[in-house]
């Protein structure tokens, strides 16, 4: 199997409401940007993978609705819907399709026009209707349980989590695409509304509108397109069980699927010491508290050490291993695009195209996706 690389990246502006464009135009904004970046036209694209959580807009057949925006007319199009991981799964699928040898250049698109419908209602419809929907529906409650578990096991404080949110929002100030540009302090987070103990409003991610597209190309084709390719080094995915009650998500000590997926991705990439070898991580953290548990799952510290890494600035822009220079999911969350943004931002870091949020000399970058009942995607990119 030859190498596969990312040669084009396009993101839209992410906002709480993109009423200036409909969904087709929103998708097209990212597609045009990705094609322009790769200096390709739609004629150069062999296949298209499009992903969103279509019930979040209360529509169906979104791959058909958006075809005038995606450029999929008379091309092979595949739609992917895997919850929060949708955006990272389309990246994995782009890699799989090009790796198969079937297509040379595949355009992947993740998008969400969340403001068009009721996100909490839509997320509630993701829970098993018979067993869990009536008592455990929504995103905040389950994530708050993970948070309180982490707190109980490690003695973590609300300040520890607040620091994570402050770092994310501070990084987002450097990202012109980010939805929230908040210059906030630890006290602001601590004083924000309590949603579900210990999760407060500023600990949680927002809901955003926006899209992200990327062009994956096979080795020769990629080198013809550009000499600045973000090469895929490895991918891995793990799914946990369906019910919150016996899933890995309820355990605050680690996210089981992420722990196992990163382990496999490192092994495939020949990475022995991820903390030393990785230069930057774009991690899907739906809340500040989740970031603590998820960081503990990346094999870069001992269990319970994540708060210390944040407090000592190890994961800050100037630290040894910067986490989410983009501002992460805490600043921007267009659900079907969110995981794709992690991969796109990691690729921008590899290609030295991240402007004010660029980490110097990135050779190896990791992106992760999270969704549903503790699903995890991992993609490692190299220069």
């Amino acid at each position, binding site marked *: 199997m030859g190498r596969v690389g990312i040669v084009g990246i396009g993101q839209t502006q992410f906002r709480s409401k993109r009423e200036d464009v409909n969904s087709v135009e929103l998708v097209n904004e990212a597609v045009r940007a990705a094609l322009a970046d790769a200096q390709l036209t739609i004629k150069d694209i062999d296949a298209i993978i499009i992903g969103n959580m279509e019930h979040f807009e209360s529509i169906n057949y979104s791959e058909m609705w958006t075809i005038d925006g995606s450029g999929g007319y008379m091309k092979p199009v595949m739609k992917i819907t895997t919850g929060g991981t949708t955006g990272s799964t389309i990246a994995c699928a782009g890699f799989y399709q090009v790796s198969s040898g079937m297509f040379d250049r595949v355009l992947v698109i993740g998008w969400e026009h969340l403001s068009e419908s009721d996100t909490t209602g839509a997320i509630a419809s993701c829970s098993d209707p*018979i*067993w869990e929907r*009536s*008592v455990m529906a*929504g995103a905040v409650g389950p994530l708050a*349980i993970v948070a*309180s578990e982490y707190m*109980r096991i490690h003695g973590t404080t609300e300040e520890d989590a607040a620091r994570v949110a402050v770092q994310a929002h501070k990084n987002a100030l450097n990202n012109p695409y980010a939805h929230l540009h908040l210059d906030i302090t630890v006290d602001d987070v601590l004083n924000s509304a309590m949603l579900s103990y210990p999760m407060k409003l500023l600990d949680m991610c927002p809901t955003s509108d926006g899209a992200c597209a990327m062009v994956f190309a096979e080795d020769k084709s990629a080198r013809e397109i550009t000499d600045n390719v973000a090469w895929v080094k490895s991918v891995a995915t793990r799914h946990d069980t369906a019910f919150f009650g016996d899933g890995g998500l*309820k355990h*605050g000590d680690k996210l089981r699927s992420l722990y196992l997926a990163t382990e496999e991705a490192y092994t495939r990439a020949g990475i022995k010491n991820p903390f030393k070898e990785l230069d930057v991580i774009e991690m899907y953290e739906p809340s500040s508290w989740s970031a603590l548990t998820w960081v503990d799952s990346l094999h870069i510290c001992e269990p319970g050490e994540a708060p210390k890494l944040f407090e000592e600035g190890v994961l800050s822009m100037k630290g040894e291993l910067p986490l989410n220079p983009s501002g992460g999911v805490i600043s921007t969350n267009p659900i079907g695009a969110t995981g794709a943004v992690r991969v796109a931002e990691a690729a921008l870091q590899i290609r030295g195209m991240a402007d004010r949020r660029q980490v110097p000399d990135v050779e190896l970058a990791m992106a992760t996706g999270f969704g549903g009942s503790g699903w995890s995607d991992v993609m490692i990119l190299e220069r």
Partner: protein
Amino acid sequence: MSDEYVTLSTKLAMPYRYVAGVIGSKFFTELRDNKKILARRCPECKRVIMPPREYCPKCFSVKTDEWVELSGEGSIESFTIIRYTEPKIQPVEPPYAVGVIKLDGTDGGLTHIIGDVDLDKIEVGMRVKAVFSDERRGNILDIGYFKPI
């Protein structure tokens, strides 16, 4: 060019009728008619699965073959207190507690409401028991909540 962005506000009212399945139907009729809480044993790994299922999610080989009647008592494994309000999806008015209840004799947790309790006094490991609803309709809220023993 107009600088006004036109939007259309609309609503889809979609009724649903979800099927509980062979295992779920037995569970919910026993719960409704006899206030019994049943779990299912995996013949391979011997885990007692809650919620009960036809196949063990880990072994995924042979069908579960044995009903196990539970006492309805258990321990709080983890919990949170819901303060935000979303009337469309919330079973009771906030603030209220939800958590994972590890029922005695099972290997999985059941997510449910923790009620009849001082919200500031809930702890992990606290012993609780099921309180059944007076009017039972054959769904998971036939257990009204779990209360401390």
